[in-house]
């Protein structure tokens, strides 16, 4: 129980906007998520899909047991999970795309695999950049996207943890999705025709 104060404080600090505390929190929560995810995945039923809420709740309960975390609501915890997912996916995506090679691989060569395709990697990297820009223009939208896309929460779930009506969340989500889609596509277009001026029609 010796860490209890620590974590509670860290979480509070983080939700107050202290990013440094996140660096300490992340590995702790990540380790717990990893453990739970692993036990789910190695379960007999390989087709079992792990729901966000199940994973997060279990991690929450476990951490609570170990550290007696007094977290006022689970909102922060969901947000933290979504951020961890974002980081992990980005790590893999970057690993993959930093390798310069010809051709693009849409598929992975081995069966029953869980890895990122090249396309997904590129999307994730572009999304991460666009999402960072969005967070500066409209932080609420970027956190909805994080919870929805990386955290796997439904619009209703986001509504209930954030205290907004689902319709409100849906309205924000619609614009965020359109904006990000446009940003990312525009970027790809520029990539394809870098020398736009020289293309004569």
């Amino acid at each position: 129980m010796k860490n209890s104060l620590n974590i509670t404080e860290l979480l509070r600090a983080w939700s107050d906007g202290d990013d440094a505390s996140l660096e300490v929190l992340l590995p702790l929560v990540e380790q717990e998520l990893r453990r739970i995810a692993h036990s789910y995945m190695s379960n007999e039923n390989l087709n079992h899909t792990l729901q966000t809420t199940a994973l997060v709740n279990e991690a929450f309960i476990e951490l609570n047991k170990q550290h007696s975390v007094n977290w006022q609501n689970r909102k922060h915890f969901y947000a933290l999970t979504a951020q961890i997912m974002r980081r992990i996916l980005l790590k893999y995506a970057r690993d993959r795309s930093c390798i310069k090679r010809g051709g693009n691989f849409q598929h992975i060569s081995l069966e029953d695999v869980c890895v990122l395709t090249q396309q997904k990697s590129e999307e994730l990297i572009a999304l991460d950049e666009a999402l960072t820009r969005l967070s500066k223009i409209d932080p609420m939208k970027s956190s909805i996207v994080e919870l929805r896309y990386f955290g796997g929460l439904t619009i209703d779930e986001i509504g209930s943890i954030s205290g907004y009506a689902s319709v409100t969340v849906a309205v924000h989500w619609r614009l965020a999705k359109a904006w990000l889609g446009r940003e990312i596509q525009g970027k790809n277009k520029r990539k394809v025709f870098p020398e736009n001026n020289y293309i004569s029609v």
Partner: protein
Amino acid sequence: MREGLWENIETLFNQAVNLPPEQRFAFLASACRGDEELIREVSSLIDESENGENFLSEPVFELGTKLLAFDPIGLLKEPDYASYRLLGVLGRGGTGVVFLAEEKNSERLAAIKILPLSLAEDDERIMRFQREAQAASSIKHPNFAQLYEFGKAKDRFFIAMEYVAGTTLRRLLKTDKCDVSKALQITAQIAEGLHAAHRTEIIHRDIKPENIILTDEGIVKILDFGLAKMFDSADTKKEVSFDDAFETSSGLIIGTVNYMSPEQVRGQLLDGRTDLWSLGVIFYEMIVGERPFTGETASDMQASILLSEPDYTPHFNDKPEIKKIITKLLAKKVVDRYQNAADLMKDLTAIRH
């Protein structure tokens, strides 16, 4: 972004998107009062929104969870491994775990198969592995995945091979029905790969759709040359690949016998012709959509391989030339079979022209 623009965009977007499409332009033209940037912003966002689904529609949480979960032998925590850097797990099977890796000096991608710890205790098998790997690594051919090395690091033996991006023939067979020309094309490319290997007296022994990769460019690559069947004991009678072996609830390991040749089932000495048989089974499966030899248990299947003739009607009624080739590939006696891949390639070329 200039002051206040985003708020304007948001308000107008939310209003315009709820209007009937034909009224939107007029609405924006009047609401934006000639502010071209604003019109451009809002209408491009509406276009994107109206396009419906983009990639954000499908959350990646599940993928993230899988990535979180996936470090089955704990090597990714310190991803430096031999002369490679492990990037992630590609798959896991009875033979160990396969990682995607990058060669540290060259940035060349590789698939690294980490063999089970139990193997390290078996000197004889390690020797065989080394011999086979050395032989296999000397062959370079576009139709099979190049073997880079067999080595040991962090107390585990590993095989490093060319990383092939694509989809396995198994997956293709699950999702698509193979049309005849594609089946011919795939068979011909496998035959070419086999030809190159057999010339140097390397046999595969485990040709099956799981070991065949189709790249996006339409190239067929054979995986695990010379090594596929090395995982079991020296006793060839029990030679069963663990590659797609699965553990039943009782803990029993079952491997596939579907693609085994009669001489393999009998535990006899093998040569390249065993691979041609397996290719025959695959060719048949691509055309018919089912396997030529079936059985409820492994023993039934083995009996079928030894004794029964595949059903050629009605799928081959209009394809007598293909039937002739498959019949020759699936000849029970090796002497009645194609004697080498080159002869098979000749017959395939004749059909394709």
